């Protein structure tokens, strides 16, 4: 296995980490409207992700930085090509971060309500758009011989990519609902479990169509295995949720995300961004990657840093492992 293949896998791992972690905090953001009945319940939901959402978001920055360093052409084509959707995602992430930090800092009702609207929309929009973006990457977009994206914004909005967006949106919301039933106590936990069942059913239908479509149009043996794992894990997550085994349910909704991301990357390989105009213009792991020297340095850095990151981020989840409910919320702003 050559280094650029290793980095293809590592970038897939980083995106998996991002979707697994920020997936549930996006989901929790969406649930503030779907699940919470009043402000205190909203705050319970927000506080389940309070200590960790910032660390989760860094997975995106790392995925972006690693793509820049390991596959500069992929990075350049992707972010200049998907300009406006990415702009929208960035604006959402800016408002979202500020919303979490500032919502509770003033007592006025209007102030808090505005930030709560912001949390909902800025969680929902990126959760949808990331699916649109990845579906387009897998499907292939108009890339010319100079590796430039030459399509328009409308080219990015097609049935397949919108379906992809709906899959990530529902999957993340389901993942978030499973997470909140794992992290809360009392009434909100029960309602969260019931909502997770419905969200899980919707996710299953959409994901099955999307994954089958992907498999039929460009899959192979390996991607078929990943797809089967994704579907089985989703069914398992639903089953454990119904049985009230929240930890297992969350682990399996995570496996669903990981397997689905793995499937997308497996169908991509050895391309990183196929061209829909001409196969010869595909961006591949070889024609888009950095030099062997850069990749070697990056590999050393990743080999040392990644286990440490997993260790201390894991420790954070251990420190904040207790469930919370409305009774734990402080009554000050």
């Amino acid at each position, binding site marked *: 296995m050559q280094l650029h293949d290793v980095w293809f896998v590592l970038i897939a791992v980083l995106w998996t980490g991002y979707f697994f972690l920020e997936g549930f905090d996006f989901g929790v953001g969406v649930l503030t409207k779907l699940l919470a009945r009043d402000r205190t319940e909203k*705050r319970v939901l927000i*506080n389940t992700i*309070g200590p*960790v*959402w*910032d*660390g989760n*978001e*860094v997975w*995106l*920055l*790392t995925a*972006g*930085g*690693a793509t*820049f*360093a390991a596959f*500069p*052409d992929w*990075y*350049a084509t*992707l*972010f*200049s*090509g998907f*300009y*406006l959707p*990415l*702009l929208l995602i960035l*604006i959402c992430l*800016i*408002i*979202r*971060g*500020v919303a*979490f*930090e*500032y919502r509770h800092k*003033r007592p006025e009702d209007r102030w808090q309500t505005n930030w709560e609207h912001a949390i909902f929309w800025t969680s929902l929009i990126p959760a949808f758009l990331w699916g649109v973006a990845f579906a387009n990457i897998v499907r292939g977009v108009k890339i010319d011989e100079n590796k*430039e*994206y*030459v399509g328009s914004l409308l080219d990015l909005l097609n049935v397949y990519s919108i379906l992809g967006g709906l899959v990530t949106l529902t999957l993340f919301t389901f993942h978030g609902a499973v997470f909140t039933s794992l992290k809360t106590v009392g009434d909100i936990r029960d309602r969260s479990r019931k909502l997770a069942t419905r969200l899980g059913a919707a996710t299953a239908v959409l994901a099955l169509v999307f994954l089958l479509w992907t498999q039929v149009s460009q899959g192979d043996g390996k991607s078929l295995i990943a797809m089967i794992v994704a579907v089985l894990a989703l069914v398992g997550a639903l089953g454990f949720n119904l049985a009230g085994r929240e930890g297992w349910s969350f682990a399996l909704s995570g496996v669903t995300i990981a397997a689905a991301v793995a499937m997308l990357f497996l169908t991509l390989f050895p391309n990183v961004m196929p061209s829909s105009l001409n196969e010869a213009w595909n961006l591949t792991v070889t024609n888009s990657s*950095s*030099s062997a*020297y*850069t990749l070697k*340095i*990056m590999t050393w*850095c990743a080999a040392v*840093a*990644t286990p440490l990151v997993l260790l*201390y*981020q894991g420790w*954070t989840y*251990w*420190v904040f*492992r207790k469930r*919370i409910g409305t009774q*734990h919320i*402080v009554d000050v702003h």
Partner: protein
Amino acid sequence: MDLALAPETLARWQFGITTVYHFLFVPLTISLAALTAGLQTAWVRTEKEKYLRATKFWGKLFLINIAMGVVTGIVQEFQFGMNWSDYSRFVGDIFGAPLAFEALIAFFFESTFIGLWIFGWDKLPKKIHLACIWMVSMGTVLSAYFILAANSWMQHPVGYRINEERGRAELTDFWLVLTQNTALTQFFHTITAAFLVGGAFMAGISAFHLARKKHVPVMRSSLRLGLVVMIIAGMGTAISGDLLGKVMYKQQPMKMAAAEALWDGEAPAPFSVFAYGDVDKGHNKVAIEIPGLLSFLANDDFTSFVPGINDVNKAEQEKYGPGDYRPNIPVAYWGFRWMIGFGMASLGIGVLGMWLTRRKFLLPPGLRTGEDEVPHLVLFKKPLSPKFANLYWIVALWTMGFPLIANSWGWIFTEMGRQPWVVYGVLRTRDAVSPNVSQAEVLTSMIGFTLLYAVLAVIEVRLMVKYVKAGPPELTEADLNPPTRIGGDDKNPDRPMAFSY
């Protein structure tokens, strides 16, 4: 296309706006993290309550500030791909690595431990909780180092070769990129300047409360800490600035000639303090000059020759082909002066403040109302009129903005002075923009970010003012008796959290 709205111009404006805005929060984040950590350490070691109250007060302002620093930083990373895709293709092999290192080593640290610090008051033992804020501080410094190494490579490219076949620059020596003198001096200069910002911020806000005789014990300690930091950091900034200037004279003679509006080389070369007239047209209407100082700044020697703008332009034309290699001279000239002027003014006010708040100026013991007392700033034996006595507090408050102005101009000077190059001597800015991104797209994002940033600025400043005015919080039982076990050692499972969003 009309040059004013050409995608290159718009992309540069967008980069300038988003970067300068981002950099209003970065230095305060770096310095306040360390200062808050220092105060919390003082509490853990001495158990004096004023230090815990100070930690909570400055910590809260730190959190309001870092929230903006974090979210505006996300834009920076993706902007290279969005607006500068040809730059990314050309230098990604080199420039991407420190960025990835920053994310892997610094950002993860910062963001994970800040979560632990914010929510960990009732979940972590005292010392572990203290370690978390130090980890955050370490993360901010590491992050600055990697990003400055990346920027330094653009100022002075080293450790690379051009791969003609792939049409890009490739890394040959990463260690050299991380340790070249440009990176080290820029890091030294930026970190010291960051602490100047934090010191002035702390001194200014403490002065605000002390002028009203409020929260005296906490604010007196904070004021002295802020002033000490201002003085040390101010001197450090001056020393590192001098070192950086010398490095730049060797590596980017054009930038430094532009900084002086020195059109033709001179030996010895004078330093222009202030020029009246149009610096863009010539160097002839100069009002104040210090003879020989420029030679000294450039070469440690009062008589040496310093090349001028025309000399360097000619040399670069011979080296890189026909073209205009001059940056915007007035921006470089005035940017350089605003940077030094506001930076040195902050240092001066720090020294003055330190002298004025000596023990000697405290009220006599008989007149004091508490253990700590506000200095009444007597310069003379006779008491001053209250208006005059308050002048220092007002000056201290205004000084909060000085290092920020100096920092912003410092970056504008550094980046604009390098034009027309994006990577000095290797890649021109006009060859770095995304060829496939339309004018409308760049315009949309530029307006979008600018409007959003403007709204957020108002929100942030008003929030800061609210919490500054509120002063340090009263301590609760939970604050004074932190848990001794990780995860919290509370037997009562329904007890409210110490902190919640």
